[in-house]
């Protein structure tokens, strides 16, 4: 398949295709920047290609190389179900490239981000201004020569000590300004209203400047970046396994899915496969997270519409999910459970039974909420026909996940690009047709039920783990084993078993082999091997020491998983060292928020709240 694409492109744009190759099954084309618009237009419109979604658009900085920058486009075709990556080298002296924002609506925001982070200009972009950083910010933070800790505070010490002076920054408030325009010969007064960032329905981190004609929204400008925490820069300055805690905080409602997504991307770079049991553990944990995420989304949306009861019920159910997560990972939210090549530790004993009990609770709560909301007149009136996004718009804005499916497009990464044994599990993807808030609500409700089914099947299919294995050998406490090892008394240590909790990091041999890939390049050896044999010790050393660690070969990979909000993709460029050269996260709700202005155009002010609740904006992954 990639070959056909390459051939067609080479025939049509022979002068502009610099290179075309595949790496780790990704089709990659390097093109000249002068032709990017034409190539993209061709790829989008040609009936054989039909790359109708612009999944991602990112910049990369190769400091010291000429040309220094690169803009990377990831396209996806719904018709052919394939991805294509286009890379465009851009030199430093004239960092400019043609915009594609007329082809895909989402490109508008993506390009603003690249401008903000790398200072690459997009010719013909309608409104190229900063998106994540503030206007006063100088420089472009993701460039390799911008130091990570160089702050440019808006609030100075002078201001802190003396609260009577007015802030030096103008908060770009157009609030309450009125202006008059002519419509059909009539004078119309429009009002500007600031909604957020400190607004209960905006979750604290979104600003919408509304242009209102009475109660009707004429236009809306959405401002983001209030929770920018430079995930990408951090990930590029820390070793591979050290990134997991940062991924937890992307979509903090379902952190396990982020963990899995990142791990799978690095594994793709390394070209390794994890054990069967580990795959199922990843599925189970992802689905538990998905349930927690949907519960939060619907609960919060219902609360904002005044249905406090539903919120309380769902928080109760989410608590059950958090307990399950805590039993495995030791934490409720920031879990850092997955590792490159495995998971941190095995499931605890009798976990299946516990999960069964908790799922029963969740199902009961879901049933309750169905009774409370699904046919409730007040609720239905406020959500039906509200926040409608047509199929075309949803595709043009690169919606994925529940929002895309609510608009009637059948796309789910778990089905289209199955990973981690999702293809061995039987489940259904609910599809809506109206693309309104009500459909999104129904889809999320149904997905929770499907997730429950997936978890149950995964437990059935999972190869039995160490918990069932009756192992021989003497047991000694792990800390004693460590002491013996330090004194060189390693005789027989290899044949003994360290007593640790199966859910603790570096757990003992029988558990360890079940959840870690046997690949020495990525998996920490078990305690017995580390302390009992020189190979184990060396292996441990090589993975832990600074400058060694996990070192994928030079190359790059894009991998996506189905996050609770849709396609959560990671694009990682490795330069062969123990730190990634570039980590790009494709956050699903970035697209939703980009399309939000369009979604509420023409709606009433009161409709903004349910519409916003339904897109499940999670600031951590939106602003990263």
């Amino acid at each position: 398949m990639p070959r056909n694409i390459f051939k067609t492109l080479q025939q049509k744009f022979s002068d502009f295709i610099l290179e075309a190759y595949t790496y780790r099954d990704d089709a990659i084309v390097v093109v000249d920047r002068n032709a990017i618009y034409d190539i993209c237009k061709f790829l989008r419109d040609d009936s054989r290609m039909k790359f109708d979604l612009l999944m991602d658009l990112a910049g990369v900085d190769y400091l010291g190389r000429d040309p220094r920058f690169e803009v990377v486009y990831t396209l996806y075709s719904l018709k052919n179900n394939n991805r294509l990556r286009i890379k465009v080298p851009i030199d430093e002296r004239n960092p400019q490239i043609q915009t594609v924002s007329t082809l895909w609506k989402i490109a508008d925001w993506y390009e603003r981000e690249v401008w903000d982070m790398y200072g690459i200009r997009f010719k013909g972009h309608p409104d190229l201004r900063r998106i994540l950083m503030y206007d006063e910010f100088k420089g472009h933070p993701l460039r390799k020569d911008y130091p990570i800790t160089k702050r440019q505070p808006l609030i100075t010490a002078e201001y802190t000590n003396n609260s009577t002076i007015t802030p030096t920054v103008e908060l770009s408030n157009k609030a309450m300004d009125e202006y008059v325009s002519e419509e059909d010969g009539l004078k119309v007064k429009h009002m500007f209203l600031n909604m957020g960032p400190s607004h209960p329905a905006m979750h604290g981190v979104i600003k919408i400047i509304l242009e209102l004609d009475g109660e009707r929204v004429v236009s809306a400008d959405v401002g983001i970046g209030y929770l920018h925490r430079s995930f990408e820069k951090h990930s590029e300055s820390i070793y591979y396994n050290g990134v997991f805690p940062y991924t937890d905080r992307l979509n903090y409602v379902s952190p396990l899915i982020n963990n899995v997504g990142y791990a799978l991307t690095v594994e793709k770079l390394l070209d390794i496969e994890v054990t069967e049991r580990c795959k199922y553990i990843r599925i189970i944990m992802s689905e538990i997270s998905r349930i927690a995420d949907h519960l939060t989304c619907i609960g919060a949306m219902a609360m904002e519409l005044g249905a406090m009861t539903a919120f309380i019920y769902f928080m109760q159910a989410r608590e059950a999910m958090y307990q399950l997560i805590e039993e495995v990972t030791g934490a409720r939210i920031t879990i850092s459970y997955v590792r490159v090549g495995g998971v941190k530790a095995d499931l605890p004993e009798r976990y299946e039974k516990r999960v069964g009990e908790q799922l029963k609770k969740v199902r009961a709560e879901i049933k309750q909420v169905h009774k409370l909301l699904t046919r409730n007149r007040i609720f239905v009136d406020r959500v039906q026909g509200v926040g409608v996004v047509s199929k075309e718009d949803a595709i043009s804005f690169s919606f994925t996940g529940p929002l895309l499916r609510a608009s009637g497009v059948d796309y789910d990464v778990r089905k289209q690009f199955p990973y981690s044994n999702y293809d061995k599990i039987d489940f259904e993807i609910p599809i809506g047709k109206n693309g309104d808030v009500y459909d999104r609500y129904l889809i999320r409700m149904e997905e929770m039920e499907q997730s429950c089914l997936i978890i149950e099947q995964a437990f059935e299919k999972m190869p039995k783990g160490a918990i069932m294995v009756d192992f021989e050998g003497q047991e000694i406490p792990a800390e004693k084993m460590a002491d013996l090892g330090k004194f060189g008394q390693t005789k027989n240590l290899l044949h003994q078993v360290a007593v640790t909790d199966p859910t603790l990091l570096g757990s003992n041999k029988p558990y360890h082999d079940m959840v870690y890939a046997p690949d020495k390049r990525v998996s920490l050896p078990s305690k017995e091997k580390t302390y009992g044999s020189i190979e184990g010790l060396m292996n441990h050393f090589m993975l832990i020491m600074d400058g060694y660690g996990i070192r994928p070969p030079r190359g790059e990979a894009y991998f996506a998983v189905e996050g609770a909000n849709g396609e959560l993709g990671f694009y990682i460029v490795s330069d062969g060292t123990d730190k990634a050269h570039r980590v790009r996260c494709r956050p699903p709700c970035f697209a939703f928020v980009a399309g939000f202005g369009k979604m509420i155009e023409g709606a009433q002010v009161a409709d903004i709240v349910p519409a916003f609740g339904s897109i499940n904006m999670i600031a951590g992954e939106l602003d990263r």
Partner: protein
Amino acid sequence: MGLRSIFGGDNLVTTKLDQAIGWARKYSLFPYPFVTACCGMEYMAVSSAHYDLDRFGAAFPRFSPRQADMLMCVGTISQKIAPILRRVYDQMCEPKYVVAFGVCTCTGGFYDDYSTVIGIDTIMPVDVYIPGCPPRPETVIQGLMLLQEKIQNQKHEY
């Protein structure tokens, strides 16, 4: 400082009055949740049924700074949002208390980079720091009780 000077400094009447006002104030805290990030998930958990902040008289969120007396600052504060947080603080009426919820607000914590603020005490005074990333609901409840203790033992203005 009206009444206090009439009674002539710290004597039996004023200390008893302080105690009485402290007792009343500590059980009627109206929080303003300034929720930005992951800690918000735990804030949700503490304020709903399972952990129930209502038992401490501090569950009813006021989304107008004018009506609130406890600013719960939950989640990472970036440089971009700092002026807004400060403005919310300035808009609150005295007496006001600030709770830093999570290490991000205490010290900047996990995120040490160009876009985050190194602890909200660089932009405004803080009464109670609740560490944890995110703090467990139990920790939050303890933090709240510490704040109540502080209010109880404070000199009040009347």
